């Protein structure tokens, strides 16, 4: 039976929700399938396409990073400015990701478990940052908090630095990664329905007990995936951060900005070396996601139930 897609007008969220779907094992015996030649052709096309667009760029990053040898690589990533860029990136992610995580859970809770007027408007609004260009995402904060912005004079008078300092970068990053967790959780929680929570309540659980013991275990997998994606995007954001950063070496540069700076200083191998850190993180992200998907496919007595889209 075909599973009805998630309701609630959150089309994009459904697509992303399906991003979380583990690859189902192929139908073992299909009585109807393509002739062999066609199959090979299709496989060739698919793998060729992926090799061209995915594998080659990936390999290029690492090849260029090590082009000048291991010593250059190690030097590039241990320079003080590189280290400070790594620290700033980690700090930014450490603030944006939990903030968006809490928001995501809250938003998913009220949207998925309740019916109220204006729900689809709310979900569309939540989706907005995803469709806003990164350049705009940075610009809006400059318009608000820059010296010529709406709050500029007030901030300057009180010595509060937002743009061209860490808070601006955190804000821009949080904005850009805003919907990730929410969009992951909403279709998931919608598909799970409210029966289990209601049962828990009727059996005497308090609100928090119900949340901790019934809801959270059900959404763990989706939550993890949303956090992983949010984190990858937060660490890799370039456009929005470059508008609000000020590019002060050693102070307001994140890893992507530092990559750009190295690139502009002719230190191409070093640029790719630092970039390879983020690429490596991306690969780890993918592996983690596959692992989570694999784990949830195991017939696991104590584990959470299967994610709905794979049912």
């Amino acid at each position: 039976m075909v599973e009805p897609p998630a309701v609630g007008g959150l089309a994009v969220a459904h697509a992303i929700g399906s991003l979380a779907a583990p690859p189902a094992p192929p139908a073992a015996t299909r009585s109807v399938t393509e002739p062999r030649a066609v199959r090979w052709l299709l496989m060739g096309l698919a793998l060729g396409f992926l090799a061209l667009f995915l594998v080659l760029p990936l390999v290029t990053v690492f090849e260029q990073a090590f082009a000048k040898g291991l010593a250059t690589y190690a030097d590039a990533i241990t320079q003080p400015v590189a280290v400070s860029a790594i620290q700033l990136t980690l700090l930014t992610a450490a603030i944006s990701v939990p903030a968006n995580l809490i928001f995501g859970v809250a938003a998913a809770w009220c949207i998925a478990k309740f019916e109220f007027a204006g729900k689809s408007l709310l979900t569309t609004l939540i989706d907005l940052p995803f469709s806003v260009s990164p350049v705009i995402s940075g610009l809006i904060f400059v318009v608000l908090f820059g010296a010529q912005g709406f709050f500029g004079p007030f901030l300057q008078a009180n010595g509060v630095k937002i743009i061209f300092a860490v808070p601006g970068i955190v804000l821009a990053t949080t904005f850009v990664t805003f919907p990730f967790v929410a969009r992951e959780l909403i279709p998931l929680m919608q598909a799970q329905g409210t029966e289990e929570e209601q049962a828990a309540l009727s059996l005497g659980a308090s609100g928090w007990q119900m949340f901790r013991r019934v809801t959270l275990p059900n959404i763990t997998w989706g939550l993890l995936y949303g956090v992983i994606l949010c984190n990858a995007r937060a660490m890799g954001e370039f456009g929005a951060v470059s508008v609000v950063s000020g590019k002060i070496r050693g102070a307001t540069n994140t890893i992507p900005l530092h990559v750009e700076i190295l690139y502009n200083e002719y230190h191409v191998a070093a640029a790719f070396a630092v970039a390879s850190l983020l690429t490596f993180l991306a690969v780890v992200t993918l592996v983690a996601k596959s692992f989570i998907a694999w784990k949830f496919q195991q017939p696991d007595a104590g584990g959470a139930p299967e994610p709905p889209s794979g049912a």
Partner: protein
Amino acid sequence: MTARAWKQHSILPGFGLSLGFTLLYLCLLVLIPLSGLFIKSASLGPAEFWNVISGPRALASYRVTVLSALTGAALNAVFGFIVAWVLVRYSFPGRRIIDGLVDLPFALPTAVAGIALTTLYAPNGWLGQVLTPLGIKTAYSSLGIVIALTFIGLPFVVRTLQPVLQDLDVEYEEASASLGANRWQTFTRVILPPLMPALLTGFALAFARAVGEYGSVVFISSNIPLETEITPLLIMTKLEQFDYAGATAIDVVMLLASFVMLLVINGLQWWSRRRLGA
């Protein structure tokens, strides 16, 4: 009307708290900054606003952006379909790894993708060395933009199609085959129609994503005004000329376009639900 008439009654707790927090966060982080944008561009006045967003360079940039995004999304629609099909229906060694790899454009920072693609396709890059003698200019041309945007949108079509493909009931194919249809007929008349909404949704998503893309395109494009200048770059250029109002005006156009895309995607989703539900 009672205070709660707009919401269905539910015994689940936490509605007020979660909704309140959601709205607060949404306002602070998203709505207020975005409205600041509209206010700033409004300082231009309607006539000047229209001038800016309809100037020749702006119009050319919309054309470049939209056409490149459409081409990239179309490439993704075709090849993404094939990839999804192969991943769902066939089994081969390494299938799981390749399936995981599809999410790479999602996880890789755009700037890294940009310099990697440029390095690959430049005249002295691995692929550029092969293609340039053939007269195919990839980096620093419109083709380069399409390549970058195809990379960016790759996961969308594949991931939208996969669950629907998985859930397709094989009974219909079997019935069709038993009634004498050949494989191609079965494909076009039985398999493809239920996939169309998902395919279109994936296409729309890839398109929407490609339209706003900056980091990966700006390295590989030649950025020639009126030819290969994408709208986000035009915004940046206006910013650097201290033309904030102009930059925000074009921002507004892009925002409205994205909003319309979102509505389209929602509409597609609704259609898909009607098609497949019950």
